């Protein structure tokens, strides 16, 4: 049954986009720069010998410990950014909509609402437990938003989906407010989670997150060729042997798993999916087999970069990474809206 989706077809040829190699080289360099910046910069700028110490020896100096903390943080921000980048690419392909991003579609808020419900009513308090609540919340919200946004003729147009997402976000965040206000304990826990950003990353959190990341990436890997066909329209895709509804379901589930898990561990981080996919599409064109892995790399770079910026602008404290990404990402949304033709809205 699934072989019809996953098998190779004529349209899944091996043509490599012409900028792919250059982009791979540039993004590798950027990735290394971001990783180094993330290790060196922060409330305290660490010297080179200390970084070496922290990475390779068992030295127990202050600097070395800081570096070790920053290593887990950097790895986590790379993974999390990658997950959000892939989630954005999957959702955009599923909805055939350039504006689909977990935060714009309100999926983050849904995950947040379920986490606060879990804290307030089910007494959960570890990342392991948050992740399931966040996943259920993300999945339900995605279903609701797609449902509302695709009503009526024309299906899920970008503007309808974005509005449905914004409205659902508003609705869910007033519910979140109503639950946390009378419940001081939940409010404390929730605020910690909400502000957690990537700074709270521990090896445990990474271990919790990793299986979901792997599942999501496998889904993306296997559905990418078929999603390429879907981009040509449902009829053409059916003619090429793809079952559109089943494919959408699988790919959307992958996207929800990725962004739900990322949200559960890192708190709501917006606009990464939007930013990375659009940068990548601008350079590589629209072949998802190359766009999805590149979006993952771009997402990792952007999130790590935003995290470093957040550490530097408000030193000695830290600005939440979600604030930085919103500040970089929102103008992209405006530019996209400005340049889009009225028809496509």
């Amino acid at each position, binding site marked *: 049954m699934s072989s019809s989706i996953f098998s190779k077809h004529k349209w899944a040829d091996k043509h490599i986009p012409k900028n792919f190699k250059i982009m791979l080289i540039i993004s590798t360099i950027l990735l290394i720069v971001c990783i180094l910046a993330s290790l060196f910069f922060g409330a305290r700028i660490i010297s080179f010998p200390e970084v070496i110490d922290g990475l390779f020896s068992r030295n127990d100096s202050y600097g070395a410990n800081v570096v070790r903390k920053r290593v887990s943080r950097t790895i986590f921000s790379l993974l999390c950014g990658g997950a959000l980048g892939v989630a954005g690419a999957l959702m955009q392909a599923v909805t055939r909509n350039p504006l689909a991003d977990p935060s714009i579609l309100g999926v983050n808020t849904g995950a947040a609402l379920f986490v606060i419900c879990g804290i307030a009513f089910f007494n959960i308090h570890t990342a392991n437990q948050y992740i399931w609540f966040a996943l259920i919340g993300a999945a339900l919200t995605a279903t609701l938003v797609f449902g509302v946004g695709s009503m*009526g003729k024309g299906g899920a147009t970008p503007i309808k989906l974005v509005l*449905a997402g*914004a409205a659902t976000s*508003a*609705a869910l965040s007033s519910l979140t407010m*109503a639950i946390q206000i009378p419940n001081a304990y939940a409010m404390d826990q929730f605020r910690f989670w909400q502000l957690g950003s990537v700074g709270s990353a521990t090896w445990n959190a990474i271990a919790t997150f990793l299986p979901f990341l792997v599942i999501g990436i496998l889904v993306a890997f296997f559905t990418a060729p078929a999603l390429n066909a879907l981009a040509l329209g449902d009829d053409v895709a059916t003619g090429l042997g793809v079952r559109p509804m089943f494919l959408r379901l699988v790919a959307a589930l992958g996207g929800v798993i990725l962004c739900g898990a990322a949200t559960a561990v890192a708190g709501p981080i917006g606009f990464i999916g939007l930013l990375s996919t659009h940068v990548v599409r601008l350079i590589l064109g629209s072949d998802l087999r190359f766009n999805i892995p590149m979006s993952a790399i771009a997402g990792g770079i952007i999130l790590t970069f935003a995290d470093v910026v957040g550490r530097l602008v408000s030193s000695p404290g830290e600005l*939440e990474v979600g*604030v930085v990404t919103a500040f970089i990402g929102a103008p992209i949304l405006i530019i996209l809206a400005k340049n889009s033709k*009225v028809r496509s809205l």
Partner: protein
Amino acid sequence: MKNQSGEFNFIYTGIQKRRRRWLLVTVLLTILAIILCGSMLLLGNTIYPIQEVIRVLLGEQIQGVSFAVNIIRLPRMLAGLFTGFAFGIAGYIFQTILRNPLANPNVLGITSGSSAAAVLCITVFHTSNTVVSIASIIAGLVTVVSMYFLSRGQSFSIGRLILVGIGLQAMLDALISYLLYISPQQDIPAALRWLSGSLNGTKMDDLPPLVIAVFLFIPIILLLGKHLNMLELGEQMASSLGVATNKTRMLLIVSSVFLIAIATSVTGPIAFVSFLAGPIANRLVGVGFSNILPAGLVGANLVLAADLIGQFAFEYRFPVGVITGLLGAPYLIFLLMRMNQKGEL
């Protein structure tokens, strides 16, 4: 000839019928507002008999009652009444001019613009309250203008305007988070006032600018209301009926932004009131009539009723913004579904 006059009579009775309905609705809404105002004064931790409250209002000093009524309940009631009125009317104006119920100051990011400027003035520049209010008004206007320019494509599209608004709002909210993060602890309570709607702790001294603004701008808006009706018929129709469309529209928008900014400075943005008031008023009175006054009254009733619910319906006291959010959000989603089904987007 006879047929013609019959038709004229038919139209005329139609107008009369609608005018009667308008009057009836307005009177009923006013009575409801008076009842709610009365309950705001009577109810509280201690319920005072109505005679005592009246005597206190007339200037008598009664131990305990005077303090509760004059210092706590009266400012709260007046703030709710006037801000509700202002939000209702401003929202109605936006919805009517842009001919879309979704176009309201909250969705378009105007409230966020005002709030960002206010928070900047409070936390960074430490200006006086007057400067804060002026800055927030200017910022609201700047947000409107920049949104207008950013969403100007080949042709005007409400969808694009809303998308740009959502983008602007995300950026401004990120800016607010950043400002709150870097600001000293003692400035935060004053800044938080601008972020969530609440009538708690309203003082008599806060009210004069709001009352003056309402009495200054409402007559202007009511006078222009006749033109607004013609604007609803469409650009060309309105100008052929002798309306200076651009000037009218600008005056109305500017007045609405003034009302919103000043009302927000007293109570903070009370969620969804500016969004709900217009459609409710239109439903009650019927479209095709200038529903400015009913919309304002609906807004006032909403805020007062929501505040009473927030204060007394639950074990815990919720700020008014949470209640209006819980009431408004489902309606927003419902409205979206209906608009999608009718293909109005």
